């Protein structure tokens, strides 16, 4: 794909992005495997793009997420945003918006119209992913938080509060 986006400089953090990504690796791996196990129907909607690589860039975080929605070998990992892997499609927006889109609480088209959501690369892959996620009942974010018990739920509540303030 042609990369024409302007990537904002990563926010300054006490911990280097590489270390954050490494620390998140086992957590994200557990999360994506659980989602794949609990929502097998979702993968049928994205069938032609199960081997596609998506990069999801939360605008205010120092890392991006690399997703490959392969039901047999699902991949979700954090990557430094200045070292993005090869990808078929890229989705960028504020973390709060991305969280709401995953949970079906915001409308992707409206966010796109308002220029709050930026997509590039394979548009059909992005549309397929959007529709697959939108057919999931309930909150994937909440399911993820529940996976880690009370600490997970507390972290999600903090993230939601912070994101809404920004």
């Amino acid at each position: 794909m042609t990369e024409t986006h302007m990537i904002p400089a990563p926010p300054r953090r006490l911990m280097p992005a590489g270390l954050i990504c490494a620390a998140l690796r086992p957590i994200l791996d557990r999360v994506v495997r659980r989602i794949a196990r609990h929502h097998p129907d979702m993968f049928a909607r994205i069938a032609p793009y199960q081997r596609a690589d998506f990069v999801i860039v939360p605008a205010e975080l120092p890392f991006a997420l690399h997703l490959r929605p392969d039901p047999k070998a699902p991949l979700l990992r954090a990557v430094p945003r200045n070292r993005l892997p090869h990808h078929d499609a890229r989705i960028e927006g504020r973390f709060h918006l991305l969280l709401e889109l995953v949970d079906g609480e915001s409308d992707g088209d409206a966010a796109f119209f308002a220029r709050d959501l930026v997509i590039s690369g394979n548009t059909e892959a992005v549309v397929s992913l959007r529709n697959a996620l939108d057919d999931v009942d309930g909150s994937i974010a909440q399911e993820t938080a529940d996976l880690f018990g009370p600490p997970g739920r507390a972290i999600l509540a903090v993230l939601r509060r912070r994101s809404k303030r920004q």
Partner: protein
Amino acid sequence: MTDTEMTDTDFSTAGELVCPAGTPAALRTAVDAGADTVYCGFRDATNARNFPGLNFTPEELQSSVAYAHARGARVLLALNTYPPAGKVALWRDAAAIGMRSGVDAFIVADMGVARHIAETHPGARLHLSVQAAASSPEAIRYYCQNFGVRRVVLPRILTIPEIRKIKSEIPCEIETFVFGNHGLMVEGRCSLTNWLTGLSTNMDGVCSPAADVTYERAADGSMRSRLAGFTIDSFAPDENAGYPTICKGRYTAPHRTEGFYAFEEPISLNLGRMLPDLMAAGVHAFKIEGRQRSKSYVRSVVRAFRRAVDSIRAGGEPDLADLVALTEGQKETQGAFQTKKWR
């Protein structure tokens, strides 16, 4: 239920709210938000929202119909595209699956599809899609008399006085769009997508196929949208965007070098404030566009129009939440319903 029976559903209540669903989750959302009726389609070319990852399998349709019926809501199956020559089997099979699934009516545009359903499934209720572009009493009566059509979805090109006059001259119910995408043109006959991509909105069910759409963001934050390699619009960094359809593209011409909307513009229909006038003109059902939209959109828009219709039924004014954030280009219009001078 056999494939030749259709429940004699009661469609008699005026002000029926007809709502979109692109997925089973969206259908459940629409029903829970107060939809009287939900319309949907299969994952193929038999309907005009044949988008990747969208729509229903036969199994999903069956369970979704059961969900809706258990809560007093109805389900319409959109078979509103035109079968290419020699390829009618897909539409015939879809109608048979719809019958077995217990849908309450079919939305059709093609005369051949209408005739097939009328003859093969004589108990089936037929609604005429906006894709048929039937906008005169003569055209509408033709479909009613020959295929038993019970409802017409009017093209978005008529004023309320014109709708009132048509209603007095036809033997069927009228459904009008009240919210959503406003890409009217000559509905059912638009070939702009076909011209660039080789795929037909009317036969393949897809306008501006996503596989042919690309977005490029420049260093200054501006964004260019392309269809099949052709630039169809360019948005400044702080400018609201629209769908990547040719009819809503911005073009230059020898006499308009600055770029202008030659056909339509990114804007959505919102007739919330006209609901009482539409009901008085004889409109039976209000349609919300947006099977391609998220369940968040469905929830917000259906709730808003549910409150508005209930308020009118109670003798009050429509109580409509501000829906502009969900509109294309963040702009609303009453279009031709307000005046023929619109565009």
